[in-house]
């Protein structure tokens, strides 16, 4: 009895429940949703699609969780994706080259350098956000809005308003390749997750982030440099967005300055919230946010798979989001538990456990 209660207390319990519910729905209403087959030596199916498609969102939600934990938000991630995709694509090369009638795969600069440069750009963008917020004390939403608006312009500037198609084959591996039968993108997510989790669990960074988000003034008195912490999280968020930009451009083999990552900041914030994290900062759980991201991607894929007419897609999404959030709301659950045996059991349990 007590174990069950403890499990439901765990932050990640409700996001996972939501994910299972969405998948359960598919089990009944989407034929072949769970079919996974092996094609060309790798796994193939809707589930794999969700993981693959959801990877950029999962990456973003990692950075976004940290930012939100300090009590801020970063709405520039979509633009950072556009910029990094544009940088990567223009460095890796956007021209189809034929040598004696055969298509050649050449890059403008060696791929590792191109990717490194892209990530450096992303980190710089994150630092820019962090500086405005931490050093100059500008409100996060407005500070990142500057980059959100300008960023897309910068990305278009880099691509001169064109969609840069990428022809260099090895680059496609990041977002489209497979390793051990699984999409390579998920390994990137895994590595980033691992590194950040290590940073957070094995150093005091996680504790400091939580403290800063919870009570900045008290944190300052304990000797935490709150502004440095902020600088770090916005930089990390920029980096995550940069990696997501590489994944996206690699997956669709092009950089579309206009549309890459458009409105994805909303999904990223939604993922964090679906993970049960507080939007006002403080305690956080990155794995829960990742599950949140998976929930969102599953909903999207489900909507496509069951053929919801495009006119009502958004309405469906709204209803599902609200339902999942209600599920997480303790007050709402109480409404149902009220007057029933559950409540009586709860008080009883309290008495017993005391």
């Amino acid at each position, binding site marked *: 009895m007590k174990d069950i209660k403890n499990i439901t207390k765990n932050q990640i319990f409700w996001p996972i429940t939501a994910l299972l519910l969405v998948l359960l729905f598919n089990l009944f209403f989407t034929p072949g949703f769970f079919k996974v087959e092996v094609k060309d030596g790798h796994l193939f199916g809707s589930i794999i699609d969700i993981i693959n498609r959801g990877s950029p969102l999962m990456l973003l939600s990692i950075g976004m969780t940290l930012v939100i934990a300090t009590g801020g938000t970063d709405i520039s991630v979509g633009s950072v994706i556009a910029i990094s995709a544009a940088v990567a694509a223009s460095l890796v090369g956007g021209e189809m080259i034929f040598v004696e009638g055969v298509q050649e795969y050449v890059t403008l600069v060696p791929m590792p350098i191109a990717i490194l440069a892209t990530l450096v750009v992303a980190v710089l963008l994150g630092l820019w956000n962090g500086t405005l917020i931490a050093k100059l004390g500008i409100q996060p939403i407005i500070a990142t809005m500057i980059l959100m608006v300008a960023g897309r312009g910068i990305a278009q500037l880099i691509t001169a308003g064109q969609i840069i198609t990428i022809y260099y084959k090895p680059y496609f591996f990041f977002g489209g390749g497979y390793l051990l039968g699984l999409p390579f993108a998920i390994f990137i997510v895994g590595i980033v997750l691992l590194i950040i989790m290590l940073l957070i669990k094995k150093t005091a960074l996680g504790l400091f982030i939580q403290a800063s988000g919870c009570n900045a003034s008290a944190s300052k008195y304990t000797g935490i440099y709150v502004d440095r912490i902020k600088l770090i999280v916005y930089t990390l968020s920029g980096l995550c967005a940069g990696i997501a930009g590489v994944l996206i451009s690699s997956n669709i083999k092009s950089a579309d300055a206009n549309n890459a990552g*458009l409105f994805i900041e909303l999904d990223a914030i939604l993922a964090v919230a679906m993970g049960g994290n507080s939007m006002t900062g403080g305690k956080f759980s990155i794995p829960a946010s990742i599950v949140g991201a998976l929930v969102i991607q599953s909903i999207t894929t489900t909507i496509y798979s069951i053929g919801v007419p495009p006119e009502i897609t958004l309405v469906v999404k709204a209803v599902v989001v609200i339902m999942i959030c209600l599920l997480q709301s303790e007050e709402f659950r109480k409404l149902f538990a009220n007057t029933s045996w559950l409540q009586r059991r709860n008080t009883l349990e309290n008495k017993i456990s005391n």
Partner: protein
Amino acid sequence: SKPASAPAPAADAATQTAETKPEEAKPEEAKPAEAKQLVVGYSQLGAESEWRTACTNSVKGEAETRGIDLKFSDAQQKQENQIKAIRSFIAQKVDVIGVSPVVESGWETVFKEVKDAGIPLVLVDRKADVPEDLYVCFLGSDFKEEGKRAAEEMATLLNGKGNIVELQGTVGSSAAVERLDGFKEVIEAKYPDIKIIKSQTGDFTRAKGKEVMEAFLKSDGKNIQGLYAHNDDMAIGAIQAIEEYGLKPGEDIKIVSVDAVKGAFEAMIAGKLNVTVECNPLLGPQFFDVCESIVAGQPVEKYIPSEEGIYRQETAAADLPSRQY
């Protein structure tokens, strides 16, 4: 068959016009009387795609070659911004106003203001739902016609029989609505054996096109014989999805799309795309021809269609070098 003018790079055009002051007007062609430089305001709806960028470049480039003082405003896809831009053109007392409206409706008030100010107005590329006396002429393509042509092409490819899926443009955009209407009209009227089994928006983007196509393939897979995409970008995205699924785009699934951008030609050369219906963005020369006629007091047609073709796989390799966008 294309109007042969080479648009200069946009950035150059921008800086040059900024420096061109009205008094240092060009030594001039065969303009009557005093060399008064023509001032044209152009409200572009945005830069949402390569196609649109090509259109912008064409207008800007042409203005530069002709020495016209172009006031260019980009509305970032917002009608409010276009209305504001038009008002600012009135304030700046331009000679002609060109508008590519982002939506069809809601223009009456501001167009009336333009008329009251005595400035002729030309609609470019997209129509507006206003009484005919509010604008001088409309120059552009017919989305519905494009949809119809795409349907005919699709029917030929499938021999009048098969299941097709559709990738729509942004919900509610006039290009999406009309390309859908035109296509449906022809299919329903003439080809009862062709069925549209799934239809979903791909927002005119590669990423969404790919994502939606993946989901279509997972649910309907081998049942799909044809794909109609409202623009080339979505088709290119979908092609990747089809390849990853293990089918051959262009063979197992016939693909028809609209726009005829460079990428589409590359795909056709590779045999992955069957047909693209052109929607010509290079409207600059035609537009300024019209402007100059109006200022010179010559009569102009109410509807000036842009010149458009259909490109198929067979001729793609030959056509590619001449594509400008």
